[in-house]
């Protein structure tokens, strides 16, 4: 059985195209705050894609508390190794801390431009602010992501936590970070998004 599997995987790697490297540059959502790394959505995405016989490697570039300002430095570090696709998942902490929306926009655009220069395909994972931040701010924030995606012409997933946020069963007791089940939901969404855009 084990042997058979080994043969199969060798077969796959020979027959299909070379391994694709996907970097998820994000914050605590990607890092899997409060969970094992194996439970965080980047690892689940990788697992799901491999199950679908895709030869991929997902690099988890999530750092708890990271804001968009840190993105460019961290991207440079990761690009020391080959990366084919960048999933950009930053900005949530900017919003939660009430930082200025134009600054966040500037940072995101800078990251995308740099990745493009390095021939990396960029996709943007958007986030919405919780309603308690006020309609004005949440509105500005939502629009900011749309504008970035439009201006930079990158594939865009409007709300990564869609169906997870606000659902106590899919979140840790802090009511902010998804739990293991929440990450499964997110991963499913990200896999669909990836498949649609690659």
């Amino acid at each position, binding site marked *: 059985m084990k042997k058979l599997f080994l043969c199969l995987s060798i077969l796959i790697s020979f027959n299909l195209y070379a391994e694709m490297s996907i970097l998820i540059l994000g914050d605590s959502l990607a*890092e*899997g*705050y*409060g*969970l*094992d*790394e*194996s*439970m965080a959505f980047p690892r689940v995405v990788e697992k799901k894609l491999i199950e679908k016989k895709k030869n991929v490697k997902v*690099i*988890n*570039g999530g*750092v*708890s*508390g*990271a*804001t*968009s*300002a*840190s993105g*460019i*430095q*961290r991207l*440079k*570090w*990761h690009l020391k*190794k080959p990366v084919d696709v960048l999933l950009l998942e930053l900005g949530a902490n*900017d919003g*939660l*801390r*009430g*930082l*200025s929306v134009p*600054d966040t926009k500037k*940072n995101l655009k800078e990251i995308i431009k740099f990745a493009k220069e390095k021939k990396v395909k960029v996709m943007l994972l958007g986030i*919405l602010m*919780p*309603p*308690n*931040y*006020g*309609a*004005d*701010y949440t509105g500005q924030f939502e629009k900011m992501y749309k504008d970035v995606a439009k201006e930079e012409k990158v594939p865009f997933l409007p709300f990564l936590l869609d169906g997870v*946020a*606000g659902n*106590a069963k899919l979140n840790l*007791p*802090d*009511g*902010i970070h998804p739990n*293991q089940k929440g990450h*499964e939901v997110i991963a499913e969404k990200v896999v669909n998004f990836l498949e649609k855009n690659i």
Partner: protein
Amino acid sequence: MKLKFIQQTLRSSKEFNFFFILCFSLGILGLILVESFKAGVEDRVSKRAKNFIASDLSISSRRQFTEVEKKNIEEVIKKNNLEYSEWIETYSLVSSVEKAKLADLNFVAAKFPFYGGVIFENGEKSNTADWETLSKSPVLWLSRDLSWELKVKVGDQLKIGESTFQVGKVFTEDQFSSFRGFNLAPKIFLSKNYLAETKLMQFGSTGSFAYLLKINDQNETLVRENFSKIIKDQTIKIKGPKESSEQIARSLNYLSDYLGLITLLTYILSLIGLYYFTHHFLSKGLKSIALFKALGFTPQKVFILNAAHLIILSLISLVVSFAAMLIMVPVLESLLLARIGEEFKLLFTSGVVLKVSLYSVIGCLLSLLPLILGAVKIPVNTVLQDIPQELKRLAFWYYLPLFFYVVLMAVIISHSIKIGIVFISALLILVGLGYLFFKTFSVLLEKSAKNKKLEIKHGFLALSRYFHSSFTIFMSLLLGVTLIVLIIQVEASLRNEFTSTTELRRPDLFMFDLQDNQEEAFKKLLNEQKLNVTMFSPMIRGRLTAINNGAIEQKKSDQEETFVTREEENQERFRTRGVNLSYRGKLSWSESITKGKFFSGRCDGEKIPCEISLEESYARRMNVNIGDKLTFDVSGIDIVGVVTSFRKVKWTSFEPNFFILFQPGLLEEAPKTFLASFKVKSIEERREIFQLISNNFANVSLLEVSEVVRKITEIFELMAFSIKIISFLSLAVALVVVWAVSFNHLELKIKEMKLFFLMGMTAEKRETIYKIESFLLTSMSIGLAIFSGTLITFLVLSFGFNITLEIRALYLISFLIILFIILNALLLFKIRNLVKRSEKALITF
């Protein structure tokens, strides 16, 4: 008939009665003082901590309560006849005409708060009427920081969500904490009645939702239980004041452990004193016991007679000490008022009285009854012999009940089996070592006495020949002084834990998320503006992936949960989570190395692995030892290091620190952010820093922490002060016992003094003999106690409290020298007095 005999015994032993009552009353007084002070401090601290949660008990959740939950909770509230309020905390952007800023919104219901309040700009504290006005109108109170940032004043309008509020008041400080610990943003208080209008609470909104309860005469434990029964969801927390802050909970535990330890010391000290007096009293009275037996009393009757004597003395001591306490309470309370500027109640309750009475009488009986039992064994024919008799020494098992009782007390009083047992074992070891030491010493004295001058010879022999008696007094002195050393040392070390944050170093602002590429600009700004940065550290996010090449098992999602305990589960989870790493070449003032050696310079990039220093409790949790190799995944790259040292971080310093510290030279290249803390001199400087940072580094967040830090340090200071007071009380008891025991010891030498006098020895020589003896005993016991006391302190601190010993050498030595001088001066005085008295001797005595 029997009563008459008891009366006679009481009347005929006035001196013994006096010493017994003195020593016992002091011991009891110490116990009562410690107990009522402890209760008072705990009450005081928990009252302050109650301000944090504005109530006696809070039920809080990070999501909205469901209707069913609400119904259930409110039902329990009604059933228990509790008063309650509600408090909802959430973050939102609030906007003035000019600006929008993030704020920590606190929507409060009527009756909020049950404890604590805010201080308004004019310096007045909020009162009930103020809060009532707030709850009834669409006004808000905002913190002064926010009013500056938003450039608004009282009467201006602020937009919050879909609604507009008028600024009613501006406050400078508030006593409440945040449900999330440190506040990310300045606070605003508004009425819960207007929350709906803001439309902030919708599906997906985040916040903390809490019921606040006031417990009057209801039983808190019962109330808690009632709520626990109906609350099924583990994410809903039921918290009292002690759980409101980890640091307070921890410090309260420390405090009560320490106070417990001190109580135990006071207790053991007075038992030693009692044992000593009673031993000598019974030795002196052996003849009359034999006489009673000769007159036809059964041993049982003689036993009862003597036991009744002791019980009566114990009861008198209880009454004396309770009376003294009643007199002392108002005096002490006014002293405390003067010192801490706040009303402080010593909780001298009937519970305390009962507890202390029980402790002391049982302990007294268990330690003294075996002595009486030994005494009644004296053979009847002794009456006819005129030979000094020795009290029959009983087999050790007669003292087993006492031993187990003291062990039990140690465990009960110190609230910890570990501390109790460590303490008792240390005492036993001390007695054993004391015996060896004293035996050796007396053999040496005996040998060297022979050819010495008369007074030196007899000084030496008085000590070495009365081995049993000298050893008892030596042990009493040794234990007494050891406990004094212990109290002084533990007090210093523990108080140091509480007050290690000096005003100068206590941070006011935390800054985080400064980016790599902003480091230089920030440093330049610091130089230009001469800002006082108390800490500046890089922070790198990583994940521990292997210990000694053994990969850390990551739990697969389909695996079943097999953890046995919650702790085990936490520990396992903890191992693979993301961690913050940092690097630094120097130790910070708030940390010290407890094991291994700190980094030797920079790490050579080629010479892998580099060194790692771990915080000791983290190392313990991770089960990592010195020499282990750790592998971290830092943004996809494996970073390897070897653990070379453990650090202990002062948790009261409020200085941010890292569990994992790398030697410089390895992590500099990794993506990182920077943390900093600032000390500011004035509100103006703080404003300036806020301005500077937000103008120069828009992405950087600044947190105001001085308020939180101040609130907690205030409690620490109260604790430190209490530790001082109680230690002082205990010292007083120890000193009195030492004094009384040594006086009593001399008292017993009067017969010998008379003989020397009759034989024509000059007064000067007679004095010298006892001066030599006293000098030897006091200097030996004090000398040895320095070591044994320090050793026990070390054991108690490292096993019991897990804190490092601060040796207070100079203070301790000078204290002991003064103690030595005073003790010897008192003894000299007593010797002179006794020598004089012994001269008034008839030939028959």
